[in-house]
Each structure stands twice: as C-alpha cells, then as structure tokens.
C-alpha cells in the first residue's frame, strides 16, 4: 500500500499534469480504477513520462494475477462447454493476456474470430 501511495504521488508529481488529464488519456478498467491503481503500479521503473511507457506484458499482469493456470481454474465452470477462454480446447492456458485484454482501450475477444455466434452464449464482454 505504501508503495502504491508513493507511486501515485510520484506519478502526479513527475508527470507534470493533473491526474484527471492522465486518466482521460489512459483510462483504467473499472475494476482496476476501483483499486485506485496508479500508473507506476503497473509501469514500474519505466521513468516518469507516460507517453514513453511500455506494455507490461504477461509478467506484469501476472505479478498480481499470479498464474495462467490459476486464472483458468477460476473460470473452470466454463470448461463444461469447452469454452473457458483461459483454457480453451485450442490453446489451453497459454495465450498472452493482451491477446484479448487491453487496459487503456477496449478489450477484444479472440474466440470471436471463428465463433461469432457462440461467444455470446458462452461469455460476457471481455473485461
């Protein structure tokens, strides 16, 4: 928590403009916003210029979300239809997180590429 507060302060102070502007430019997903995450919580040690921040990749996501196997387990109830997006019949728990999930723009659903109609039956909008 201390780390988070420091990061927030750091972000606000160093980025040189109001957090409102930043959050408009780089909006967070509601569940992350709810946790009051700041830029540097994810973009650790990436300097103080948000426009130069790099995508954090699987390693970044999993630093909180633990492991792909665990995420697959949480959606295990969808295995019945073989439609667990974190453990699909095609890919198992191997896909990159950002194949579907985006933080600062709308997420997508890779299953839709082939399963246009069924996805609606299987799951909600990708968080």
């Amino acid at each position, binding site marked *: 928590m201390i780390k988070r507060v420091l990061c927030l302060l750091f972000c606000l102070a160093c980025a040189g403009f109001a957090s409102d502007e930043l959050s408009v430019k780089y909006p967070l997903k509601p569940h992350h916003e709810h946790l009051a995450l700041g830029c540097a919580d994810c973009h650790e040690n990436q300097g103080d210029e948000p426009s130069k921040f790099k995508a954090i990749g699987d390693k970044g996501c999993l630093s909180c979300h633990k492991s792909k196997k665990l995420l697959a387990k949480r959606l295990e109830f969808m295995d019945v239809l073989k439609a667990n997006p974190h453990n699909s*019949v*095609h890919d198992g728990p*191997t896909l990159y997180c950002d194949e579907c999930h985006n933080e600062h723009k709308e997420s997508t659903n890779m299953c839709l590429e082939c399963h246009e109609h*069924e996805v609606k039956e299987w799951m909600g909008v990708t968080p």
Partner: protein
Amino acid sequence: MSNLSRRNLLKISALAAAATALGANQSDSNAPSWDGEYDVIVIGSGFAAHAAAVKSAMRGLSVLMVEKMGRVGGNSVINGGIFCVPLSPKQKAQGINDSRELFFKDTLKAGRNLNNPALLELIFSRANDALNLTLECGAEYRDFLEQSGGHSVPRGYKTSNGTGAGIIQPMQARFKSLPNTEVKTRTKFDKFITDDSGRVVGVEVRENYRFDNKLFDDDRENKSGDKKLYRAKKGVVLASGGFCADKVYRKLQEPLIPDNAQTTNHSGATAGAMLEAFRIGAYPVHVSHLQFGPWASPDEKGYGLASKFNVTASFRYGISVDKKTSKRYMNEIADRKTRADKMFEIIGKDENYPIHFCDSRPVKHMLKEQFDKLLASGALKRFDTLDALAAEYGLNASTLKQTVAQYNEYVKQGKDPDFGKILPKDGTDISVPPFYAMRGVPKLHHAMGGVAINNKAQVLSSITNEPIAGLYAAGEVTGGTHGASRLGSNAILDCLVCGMVAGENV
C-alpha cells in the same frame, strides 16, 4: 570491413549467393554477429513445424521454433482434426479394405493429376510413422473413422477433442520437454541469411512482433518488433503455412476474389515467408491453385461448427439441394473442387445459398458439445417435418419430398445414377425425423501451391535445380503434393509426414 552494418552484411551475403550461382569465386565471407545459435530453426508452429521440431530435437539437436503470432499452431490448432491414414490399424480392425492403388486413384482424381508422384508416394508410405509420432507424443483419436469427400473408403482418424489442437498440444508439450528446445512466439521471420555458397545459415527475425489484423497487408505494413539474427548450424525448416488470408497475394492469383471474401484460415495465413523463399531462389509450384472448402456456412464466420455438421453428417448421410429447384445438383461427397465449383454455379450473383440437410441419425457421429453449440447458434436448424424445412428456406415442399424419396431409393439400391455418390453402407437415408438443415457456402480454405521440395523435404532451387543447402520445407507452404485440389484430411498427413522427414534429414 569490420564495421559494416548488419544490413550491408546481409546484402553482401545475398550478392555472394548470386555471384556463386553465376560461377564467380567469392572468397570473402563475413560472418554476421549472431544473437544466438541453434542446430535447427523451424519457422512456424503448426503440424509441419511441430513434426520437424520434435523429430530433430529427438535426435539430440538444439531447436528454435519461431512463430509470428501470439498463439501457437496457426491453421493447425483451429483445424478439424481429421487425419488421413491409409492402411491404418483402425482400418484393419474395422475390416476396411484400403490399398496404395485406391489412395493414389482418389488423390490423383481430386488433384486433376497435377500431384507430384514422388511426394504422394512419400506421404502414403510414411503415414503410419507420422501417426505413431503423434501417438508417441500423446495424441488421442476416436474410434469412428471419417470418410472425407473424395475418399473411396473411410481413412480419417479424428482427434478426440475434434480439433487439430488434439495433436498440436501434446506435440508442443513433448517438444518443450526435450533438451535444448525453445519456442519464440510474436517473433516474425523476415529473411534467410545465406553464406557465400548460397547455403542457408540462419535467419533474420523480429522479436516482440505484434501481428495486426486491422492492417490490410500485415506482411508489408507492420514495422513492429526488434531485429535479431539467429544462426542455424544444420538448417532451417520453413513451415509457415498457407496464404488464404493474404488479401494481396491471393488476389494476384485469382483477381475475382473480393478483399472481404471469407476464409476458414487464421488471420496470420499470409505469403511473406514463402515469398522470401522464392526470393532466394526456391521454385514456385501451383501457387495460383486456391482451394475453397465446400462445407462452410454464410451464417457464421470462418470454419465454424457448421463445417463439422456437413463433413460428418449432412454430406455423407444426407443431401444438398438448390433452393431454386428443390433438387440435388452435385455428388455431396465429391472432391472439394468439384463441389465448390457446383455450389458457386448455383449461388450465382443472388446469394442463392444451397441447403444441406440430413435426418436425426447422422448427427450422433458429431461431438455432442459441437452439435449442441451449433444448434444453439442458429446456423443449424431442426425441423420435425420436411414441410417445415421447405417452408423455412422457401423450397417447394412437394418437389423436395420427391427429391428425398428418389435419394432414399438410391440408398436402398446402393447406387446414385444421378451424381455417382458413394452411398452409406449402413443404409442411412433421410427418413427418421427430426431433420437438421443449414445454408452452405464454400470459403477460401487451402493454398495448394508453394515452394517445390523433394522427398527429403529439401527445397529445390530454380538457380541450380538442386536442393538449396540448409533449407527444408514442409506443410501448406509447399506445393505439388495435392495437385489442383487437396482431399480433406490429407493436409494433416502431408504436414506431419514432410515435417517429420525434414526433421530426420536436417
């Protein structure tokens, strides 16, 4: 010379290759500064790549697999999982009489005799070895043998989860478990690096590459990623798949294909890697033969699940009718080209999609969850009577019933004088309601052409008419094996056999 940039080095090696080809004596070799080295580098991660990678890693070689997409497996991992194995143990157990002659006859007929006989012989003679390689890796198959269109007898092993992932996943696990193996996804192969003699000694790739399916032409427009050079001490296996999703290259072959034409392929099925092989001299074969899969539906994207219904149920045990006449118009299990051409004829300009249907019995051969999903999606519909079916699709009910009665008579007699279809031996006709039906359309499915290889999976050079040293290829990126039109289930056979052979020889 020591401070030459990498770019210049590449140019020099390309020039050196050309110079050697012209007989000039080029002695000065400039070894690039490699970012890593392996015995074997495999480009792609589908069936062909996995067979090559696993086989060469089993021989104790160090192997790098590079895949441009984030996902492993290309078309192979979304594929229908039907694998043709002529003279297989399951055929023997089920009393199915198959032979070399029959396999050649079926395959050459579909291929319009354009098939390369040496490659056909290769995939026929090594089919069981390829099957065993997958079993050794842990692949599982159902007992029911599929009879895909154009095959005179059932030859199709089907993975137990109903997709090619049933082969790719165990092979990927096996590959990773072998020593000195590595998989790099989001890594795009851009160029071959050749030495003075023209031998392929490595590859230039871009790591952290993000394929962008919003681009019209990813191969040329996408500049993402960080350049790296990897050395391949023994050789490179090109297994980059087909190009049915390449809007630019496919249109060069068939100008009438609209840019928004539907394909069953994954969005990364583009021609760039194959074109790079042409650039260093590989012979092109049959690149303008593009195959349309006749079993898809206009009511869902891609290959979808409708294809499974048609492949396993409606085409084999039911019929397809023209909406305008309520009559059959083709042999529902002819080879793909025959069917796609017939279907396009009746679809015409007014989207007159044909109706494929069967009765209640054949759907039991489908995987239950796939059948349930398809029905729930609405692309497949259930009808208690033929009248209801006719009403839904605007068919003439009495003509439809005559068509069905006539077909049922043919099934009873075991002979289809109209279209020569091989009728179900178990006597399944169209008589036990409910009936299942859907609208059909052929979709761009398979690139028949590609680089020329010999029966050791070596790529043949148009400069020397000899193999290009250090370069092997397998799978859909090669051309010639299937001729003008591939039989269903022969792709897995081809990809696995030639990949395995590349892995044995590299």
